[in-house]
Every structure is written in C-alpha cells, then in structure tokens.
C-alpha cells in the first residue's frame, strides 16, 4: 500500500522532473566538491529564476486556451526590445525609463498579439509549427528594422560607420539591474534580488487572478474542449485571441525584466531561440502541451534555470568551454520532444 503510494507519488511528480531534480542535486554536490563559490551560485540561481519567470509565465494563457506553448514568443520579446530601445532614444533613465519601457512594450505586445491571433485562428492544429516559424520570421524582419530605423542615440548605434543599431546595447546608466538592486540584501553570502522576485510574484498573482476570473475560466473551457465551450455560446476564436494578447504582452514585459538583470539589450538574431528555453522550462515543471498550472511554471522555471546556472561552471571546469551551451540545447529540446511524444488523454 505504502509502496504503491510512493510510486504513484513519483509518477505524479513526473519522470522528467525527477530526473532533473536528481541532476541538479548532483551538479550542486559536484560544484561544492570542485570548491566553486556556492554563495555566488545561489545568488545567480535566484536572479535567473526571477529574470526568466515572466517569460515562462507567458506560456500559461496559450496552453490554457488549447493553442499549445507559445512558440512565437520572440514576437512579444521584440516588443519588449522596442520598448527598451525607445526609452533610451528618448533619453529616459532609471525607474522612469523602466516604467515607460514597460508601457510601450505592453501596448505593442498586446497589439501584435492581437494580429498574430488572427493568423493563428486560421491554422488551428498547427499553432506550434506556425508559431515557431512566425517567431523566426519576425526576428529576421526586425533585423531589417534594427538596421534601418532612424535611431540617433550615440550609445545605441554603431560607433564608426555602419548603419543601424548595435548588436548589444548596454543598459548601464539606463535601467541596468533596476529591479535586482531594489531592496536587495545579502544573507549568508547570497544576494537576494528582492525587486525582481517581487515583480515576478506580482505577475504570478495577477495571472492567478486572471485564471480565476470569468474570462479566465471561459478561456480554460475553450482550451479543454472547444465543443463544450461552443455549446454554451462562447466564441472560441475570441478567447484564443485574448490568450494570444495576454501571452504576448507578458513576453514583452518579461523581456524587459530579463534585460535589466542581464544588463544588455540584445538585438538582431538574439531572440531567435528564446522561446524554446521558456517552453522547456514549463515542461520540466510538469506542464504538458495541453495543461499547465502556476506551480508548473514556478517549479519548472526554478529547476531549468538552476540547472543551467550550476552546470555552466561545472561543465566548463570538467569539460570544454562549449559544454554548457550544448547541454542547454540538448536538455531543452530533449524535454520538448519528450512532451510532444507523450500520450495525452484527449479532450475531444
């Protein structure tokens, strides 16, 4: 009886999750054994947890609405980047800059999410494939924008000759670490990025409230069973649209939070693969292509980012320099493949 409960508990926790937990514990032990600075390691685990959180959170609306993970995340991310570059161009600084960037990003994210949903509602059943390639094509289209857009701020454009914005724009002096440093403190050698964590918590709370609102429940019904939703007069396309709008706006905000921790805005090809890491992190947390909860996001985001943070120094000491990057690709895509091939109880 007891044995049954243990194995069932393990199954509920999920194979993938268990493997990753074991892997993480091993990595931490190894790091300790190698004498790496553990305090620093834990600090960066917390920072990465906070800075990637909202991007992972953006997966909730689309999965709930039955559109699968939002592989078109780069669309929202780029809106965040546009917000970021716009405030720098306007020479805003500090909290004002960050707030203004978020406003711009949210508006753009929501608008583009709306347009994107018009496409998605035409290709039901192929959302993931179309999303991936839509994300890619937006990234390359925006490359043209970064090259041609009339930005003038000297800190953003190439210093000598060349047209367009730089690949990487430093945020030092603009809104670098503005949340990380807010109310941050140090305990037992670990820096706590209070602002970032609180900001993420705020968005989790908002998401929780959204999911338990009338609209949120309707969206869940649409995702669970479109025929059920239609039978009570819900407009399926409309709720898919709402999901896309919310997800993209979150991605835009998420990008800015990410950037303030990271310290740079990375343009051009940089957002290309960011969706996959966000998708992988929620899947590790136990989400599937059709079902996701807040706890999946929290657990998954923590596990995935922690593994990356800890594996980097460990792998680089033990193996070659590229090892951690390769590991990241294998883990994140491996987990998505695993989720794609897992049999799911069909809603229909």
């Amino acid at each position: 009886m007891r044995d049954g409960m243990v194995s069932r508990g393990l199954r509920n926790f999920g194979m993938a999750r268990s493997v990753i937990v074991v892997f993480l514990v091993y990595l931490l032990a190894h790091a300790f054994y190698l004498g790496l600075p553990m305090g620093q390691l834990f600090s960066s685990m917390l920072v990465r947890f906070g800075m990637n959180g909202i991007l992972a959170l953006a997966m909730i609306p689309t999965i709930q609405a039955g559109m699968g993970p939002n592989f078109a995340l780069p669309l929202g991310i780029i809106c965040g980047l546009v917000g970021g570059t716009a405030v720098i161009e306007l020479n805003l600084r500090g909290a004002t800059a960050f707030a203004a960037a978020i406003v711009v990003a949210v508006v753009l994210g929501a608008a583009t999410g709306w347009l994107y949903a018009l496409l998605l509602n035409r290709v039901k059943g192929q959302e993931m494939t179309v999303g991936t390639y839509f994300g890619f094509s937006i990234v390359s289209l925006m490359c043209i924008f970064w090259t041609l857009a009339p930005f003038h701020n000297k800190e953003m454009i190439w210093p000598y000759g060349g047209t367009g914005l730089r690949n990487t724009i430093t945020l030092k002096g603009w809104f670098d670490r503005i949340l990380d440093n807010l109310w941050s403190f140090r305990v037992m050698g670990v820096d706590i990025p209070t602002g970032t964590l609180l900001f993420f918590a705020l968005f989790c709370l908002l998401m929780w409230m959204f999911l338990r609102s009338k609209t949120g429940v309707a969206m869940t019904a649409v995702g669970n069973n479109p025929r059920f939703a239609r039978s009570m007069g819900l407009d399926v396309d409309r709720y898919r649209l709402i999901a896309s709008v919310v997800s993209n706006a979150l991605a835009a905000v998420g990008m800015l939070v990410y950037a303030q921790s990271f310290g740079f805005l990375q343009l051009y090809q940089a957002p290309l693969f960011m969706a996959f890491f966000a998708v992988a992190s929620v899947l590790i947390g136990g989400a599937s292509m059709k079902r996701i909860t807040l706890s999946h996001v929290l657990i998954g985001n923590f596990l995935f980012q922690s593994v990356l943070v800890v594996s980097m120094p460990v792998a680089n000491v033990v193996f070659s320099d590229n090892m951690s990057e390769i590991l990241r690709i294998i883990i994140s895509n491996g987990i998505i493949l695993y989720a794609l091939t897992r049999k799911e109880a069909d809603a229909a």
Partner: protein
Amino acid sequence: MNFVRKNSVPLFFVALCGTGAYYSGLGASFLLNEIITRLARNSFLVISLIIPVLAGMGLNFGIVLGAMAAQLAYILVVNLEFRGFVGVLSTCVLSIPLSVLFGWLTGILFNKAKGKEMITGIILGFFANGLYQLVCLTFVGWIIPVRLASMLLPDKSGAGPGIGLVNTIDLRSVQYSIDNLWKIRITMPDIRNFCAWMGWDVTIPPSIPITIPVGTFLIIGLLCAGMYFLFRTKLGQDFRAVGQDRTIAEVSGIAVDRVRVAAIVFSTVLAGLGQIVFLQNMGNLQTYGSHVQVGTFAVASLLIGGASVARATVGQALLGTLLFHTLFVVSPQAGKNLMGNVQVGEFFRVFISYAVFCVALALHAWRRIRDRNAGDE
C-alpha cells in the same frame, strides 16, 4: 483567373525574383551561372521532402538528420584521405547506413507524435544538432580517435591538437567530383560590342561562360525518374493510401506505422545523398553550420514552388528551388541598390525563407475552409 488563384504562391515569387533581379543589376550570364549551380546543388535535398508529404506526414524537418549523416560520412572519408570520385562514392556508401538508422529512429518518434510531425521534426533537428555538437566538439579527439591532426581544434595552449573538430573542413580533395563527371560550358555572345556598335549607351557587365554540371543534373534526373517509379510500385501506393487517410489504410490491412517509418527512412537517406551532392559542390564543410538551415531552406523552396503540407510534386520542388535560390542570389545586391545596405537584402532573404512557411500554411487553411463552404452548397 483560376490559374492565377491556383498558383498564387509561385507567381508571387516569380514577380519578386523578377523585381529583385532587375534591381540587383547583376548580369544575365552571372545570374544564370549562379542559378544553375545552385539548382544542381540543392534540388536533391528539396526532392527528398516529397515522400513524407505524400505519406501524410507533412514537411519533414527531420531531413537535418540526413544532412548530419552525410557530414559524418564526409568527416570519416576526409580522415581516411579518400579522394575524388572514389571519395564521394565512399561517402555515399558510408552515409546510407547512418541515414537509415537516423531515419528509422525519426520515424518511430513521429509515430509517437502523430499529427504533430512537423513541430516534432523541427525540435528533433535542434536536439540532434546538440548531440552532433556533443560528438564533434567533445568526443572527437577525446573518445573518438582521429588520424589527421589537422582536423582537430588546436589545444588551449596552442601546443598541439586538442579536442573537437575544426570549424571548417576542407573538401577540395573531392570537390566537383560529381559535377565534373560531365560538364559543358556555353559562352553567351557578348552583346556589348553590338551595343557599342549600335551606339546605345548602356552598361552591361561582361559576359562569362555558363557552366552546366550535366553529370549532377543527370543524377537529379535519375532521382526524378526514381520518384516516378516509386509511386508506381506497391510501396508508393501504400505511401499515398496512408497519406490520404490513416484509419482507412489501417482498416484495409496496410501496416500504417511501418509505411510511415519507411517514408521517413527514404526521405532521410535521400536528404543525406542530397547533402553529399551539395557539399561536393561547395568544396568545404562548415562542421557546425552546413546542416543547420538545410531543413528550413528545403521546406521554403518546396512551398515556394506551390506545394502544400499535403501535396507536392517533383515539378514543384524544382520550380521552388529555382525561385528560392534566384531570390538568394539577387536579394543582397537588390537590397544594397534599393536600401543602400547589403545586410537588408540578406535579412529579407532569411525573412522570406521563414515567412513563406506561415503564409503557405495560412493559405492552405484558408483554401480548405473555402472548399468546405463550397462543398456545402
């Protein structure tokens, strides 16, 4: 009107290529040369996508694995210092078992993700790329021994060979060994003198001879004939039956899962051979880059030719390759002349190769809805 509507995608790209060619200012003979080279180089890869489409599995983004098999075979052949046509031939022989293995695994994976083959293929490509890097970057020279020290990255101290394959592997020893089997050159008449004589004040770049790798084209022709033949065999009929309706095929006693695996194995093997043709023309192997875009470019080419996720022909593959690569050649120059920036053309080209996928799928969905409405009346 019907013709226009049916062929809207290829027609749009014909117009785009025409405009691009006009603004690029490239000479006709140069353009022709480039296009012929690229057609010879890429057609094989694009054609390898057809079988899974007809077997109802959509566009096989998993052909990246075939390309990897080809590259691993090349690496082995270079390491063994085989040269010339023998080198290419042994690469083919070596690549096939690898491709079959990769294709078989891909097929099994796709059977577990029915209806989601395309996204699975895309992610599988990324995943396999990770494993490929793991092998080439950390295992080679460490676990896997290498004969030629020149193939390994230098050690950190710079003293000797370290771990991992170099970024570029020289394939000059086998370059053009298929193309050179039979090659003809046609010299276009130089019309500049004629223009000067007529007193026209036009600047036309000098004409260069056009090289046609007839041998490669013969092999592609052979492949097309092979495809024609395949779809007149029992196996080909099974592919089509499974592609139309999995359930009915199953009920009729066709082993659907095995047929689907066979389709992917065929596709992967052909993609491997296609990548061999591609690389023997290029003359060098970007160890970590040559295969990455193979899937995207091939898929984009096929779609530009007017194919959909459910329908594709050899003709569409060839037309699509022609158009896509014409765009490839002309867009940087056209971008420079129009926007004053080479990069813009480059970005535009990448944008097209991604965007065409979304557009084609949306058009397909739209057409399906329209057909259904028409059917109701």
